[in-house]
């Protein structure tokens, strides 16, 4: 329940961006899409439990 989750997502985004640059420079363009996908999945893994606890909380409070 802390702010560092936003920083973690930003870090994953930055790493993916840097990796893409490195891959592009070294001539392996075909891997950039894979790296982006992997980064996206990692960020999703970070956010999803967060969102599910939020919806679980709202469900319990409002009796949905």
């Amino acid at each position: 329940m802390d702010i560092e989750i936003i920083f973690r997502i930003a870090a994953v985004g930055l790493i993916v961006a840097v990796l893409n640059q490195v891959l592009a420079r070294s001539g392996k363009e075909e891997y950039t899409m894979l790296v982006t996908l992997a980064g996206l999945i990692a960020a999703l893994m970070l956010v999803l439990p967060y969102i599910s606890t939020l919806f679980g909380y709202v469900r319990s409070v409002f009796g949905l």
Partner: protein
Amino acid sequence: MIFKLLGIAAAEIVIYALLRRIRPEFAVLSEIAAAALVFFTVAGELGSVKAFFEETVNASGTGSAYAGILLKILGTALITQFAADAARDSGQSALAEKIEFAGKLLMLSLALPVLKAVLQLITSLSNGL
């Protein structure tokens, strides 16, 4: 408490601006995470407000049957707003409209019994006149 929200909002604005230029999909993810975070910081007060609400409604005795429905409608409205805003922020205004339409429909279906009760009340009153 409000300063914590301010801190979260400021951090999110900066990170969104940064990520939008480099990797737009991560910007949307950070948007959703920040929205959830803001909600969590005020979640404590939500519990106490709900307790106060239930206490007064039960004390009134008449409306307690519909208090549950009212809370359900509030919950659906909250979640629909959350989803619709996330969609609208990432540029999907059409999707946001669909989500809001679905939310309104759900809320209406939740409110049907209350409407029926009101109509019955009115018809019974008019028969009595």
